Structure formats: structure tokens, C-alpha cells
């Protein structure tokens, strides 16, 4: 019995550590499903859940504030992204191995309306993160 549990434990620890970057199940977030098979990259993440916007797990603004913002630019999100961009450039300046590529991954709940997504994407592009990828759950193509 103990050996069964030991093997199970080792397997779960391995898969828990390997899945790494995009843990959307932890928040109240349901990614949309897509047939895409492109592997996710390790980049900055912007999470748009059902009630707030997070940048790399740091809460930046609430969804209500986003909806109330006139125009497309979200100042709090823009500030957080600019800070991250500056830090990334600073690191790239002293470390020749890394470079600032302006990549960001957006994890959005499937019920998010396009107006909110549009504001987030506009703010990201205005904060020098113009290489945007959308995170999705994989599903098999049906028919």
C-alpha cells in the first residue's frame, strides 16, 4: 500500500512542478477552449478573471474600474506593465543572455466581453508589450 502511495506521490510532485507557468485553475478563471497546439512561453502574464485584473499574480485593478474607464488606456495596468518593462530592460542591460522582447500572455475568463479585452490589449501595446498571446485550454477538433 505504501509503495503505491509513494509512486503516486512522486508522479504528482513531478507533474505539479512541470506544469509551471500557467496555473489558471487556482483563480476563479475558465480559459476558453481552442484547437491550438502552440506551447505556452514563459512570459509576463496578465490575468483577467471574473472580477479583477492581475499582472503576474499581483492585483492591479478591478473589473468594474476597467468597465468605468473612458477610452482605451487603463492607467493602473499601464503603470504596472511599464514598471515590469523597465525592470526587464534593466536586467537585459546587465545580462547579455536575456533581452526584453515585449511578450505577454493574456489569461482571460471565457465570459469576458470584448470591450474589456480590447482595453487590456491596448494598454499592453501602449506599454511596449506588443507581442500578445492568448492562453487557452486545448481541445480536440470535433468534426
Amino acid at each position: 500500500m505504501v509503495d503505491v502511495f509513494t509512486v503516486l506521490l512522486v508522479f504528482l510532485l513531478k507533474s505539479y512542478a512541470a506544469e509551471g507557468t500557467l496555473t489558471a485553475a487556482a483563480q476563479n478563471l475558465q480559459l476558453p477552449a481552442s484547437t491550438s497546439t502552440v506551447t505556452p512561453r514563459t512570459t509576463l502574464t496578465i490575468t483577467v478573471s471574473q472580477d479583477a485584473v492581475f499582472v503576474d499574480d499581483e492585483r492591479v485593478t478591478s473589473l468594474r474600474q476597467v468597465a468605468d474607464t473612458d477610452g482605451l488606456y487603463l492607467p493602473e495596468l499601464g503603470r504596472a506593465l511599464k514598471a515590469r518593462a523597465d525592470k526587464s530592460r534593466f536586467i537585459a542591460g546587465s545580462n547579455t543572455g536575456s533581452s526584453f522582447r515585449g511578450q505577454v500572455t493574456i489569461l482571460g475568463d471565457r465570459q469576458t466581453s470584448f470591450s474589456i479585452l480590447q482595453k487590456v490589449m491596448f494598454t499592453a501595446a501602449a506599454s511596449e508589450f506588443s507581442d500578445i498571446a492568448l492562453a487557452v485550454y486545448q481541445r480536440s477538433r470535433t468534426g
Partner: protein
Amino acid sequence: MLDRLAAHRRRALPDEAIHIVALWNLMIILIPFLLLSAVFSQTSILNLYLPPPAKPSEASGGNPSVPKPVVSILHDGYLLSDGPTVVAAIPLDATGRHNTSKLTELLAQIKGASAERTDLVILSEATTPYETIVQTMDASREMVLQREGRSEMVTLFPDISLGAIGPQTGQSIAPASGRAP
């Protein structure tokens, strides 16, 4: 001397129970926790495409940039345009959802006419759900073709940009499809 060794060996093998209580705590608490938090679905990404800025020679007097297919997601269906001209209006299917298979068919026809184009624009209304946009992207990126009993994946328009519907497009597909709303 051998007697002493044998006696020593006998004394050094007491019948002791191994204490695995601490190990069981680990199993009973850690394994359910890991099982509950394990996500058995795989995540992947969809890359968005930012069209390159127009080159100066094109803007000044050469050919205008090649028109792109535009898919507008309206609340009552799709509006497919090739550049400025409307090609088709695709109403919702029987279940009330957007008809992605018909969209893929029409896009395949456009692709057949000009195979070197790979970029496409998807325009959405402010209230379009994210999931609908992702499904539309899926329908526009590639198509499964049944040929000689095997299914083949044909690339249609993988470079997709997103945008918002401008005021000139209108809010319903009815005028384009020629039916009363």
C-alpha cells in the same frame, strides 16, 4: 570465533516494527492536496498578429496594400468582407450559436482564390464574449479536409488581428443578407 559472530548476529536482529506513522501523514495529507490542485487539462496559446507598418513606397504611390478578409462578429451572425466589399452574411445556426463551419467554408473559398494571403482581421462588438472570438479564430486558422478517407489540415489564415467594429459597419447582418431583421 565463529560462535561469537553467530551470537552477535542473532542479537543484532531484533523483531522491530518500522514506524511509518509519520510517512502516512505525508501520504494522507499531501496526496489529496496535490490531486485536488492538479490540472489535467493542457494549456496552449494563440498568437496575435500585429501587421507591420506600411512601407513608405507603398504609401506614397505604389499599389495599395492587399485587402485582408474581415470577419465581423455581430450578435446575430458573421459578416464576411474581403477588404471593403461584403462577401457574405452568415446568420446564427439552429442552436443559436455562430456558424463556424460555414465561415470556414467561405474562408476556404477566399483562400483558394488567393493562396498567398495569411492575414485576417476579426472585428467584434463590445459585448462579444471572449469564447466566441476564440472559436472564430479557430475557424479561421485552419480547416480539416477529408481527402481519400484521410483528414488533412489545411492552413487558412493563421495571422489574425483583433479589432473593434467601427460605426460604419452597422449592428446587424440583416441588410447584407437581404432579409428583414
